[in-house]
């Protein structure tokens, strides 16, 4: 299955595009998305400061609600990655 990750803040270092497509095993949940992200960062972005991102990020559904690690993702679902925040 494939999900589309909408990038915000430091996660924009993962791609030049606003959306990052990720291939995940069928019936994956958010925990598996974190694992996939961890692998991607260690393989392709090890020089960046994104080492902790797969642990510290939250994820929002299309309804802008936080989704927890047990949330079952749907094929082609659009999910926002929310790295640690700091406005003001």
């Amino acid at each position: 299955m494939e999900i589309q990750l909408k990038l915000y803040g430091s996660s924009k270092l993962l791609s030049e595009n606003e959306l990052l497509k990720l291939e995940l095993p069928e019936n994956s949940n958010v925990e598996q998305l974190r694992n996939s992200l961890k692998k991607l960062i260690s393989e392709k972005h090890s020089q960046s400061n994104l080492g902790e991102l797969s642990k510290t990020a939250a994820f929002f559904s299309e309804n802008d609600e936080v989704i927890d690690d047990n949330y079952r993702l749907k094929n082609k679902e659009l999910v926002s990655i929310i790295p640690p925040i700091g406005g003001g």
Partner: protein
Amino acid sequence: MSLHAALVKVEDEKISSEKAKNFISSEENGAESIFTGKVRNENSGKKVTAVTYDAHDQAVIKSFKSICNSAKNKFDKNAKIFLEHAKGYVPVGEISILIAVGSGHRDEAFKICRYILEEVKHQSPIWKKEHYVDGKEEWLPGHSLRPKKNIK
């Protein structure tokens, strides 16, 4: 209307303290408190030229409204509140956030202003990328919205 909350795309317009003052102005106010946050020219020993603010627009507006309503319920139901935050490239010296509060008394006006600022920093999905004199840039660390007990 007693509440205005917005993200301002700085390429299109600037945050205006005059607009804020006009919005909160009322003969019922005994106190008006205005906080402006600006981009500073230094952070952790690095010389800063500008900050780019990124934001999850819909979630930010939702959080702004929730924070402001919570402040009203906590301190003064009749307070008038104006809250704007910049989105985009903001050079040193320009406004990144403006909070203006009109209230019956000074204590409530100060408290609401402070409460909103701290809650925005902890709840609103906004990110800062600093730009430095040497041409480098860096996304700043922040506060995770993931529950601490789940971060191992």
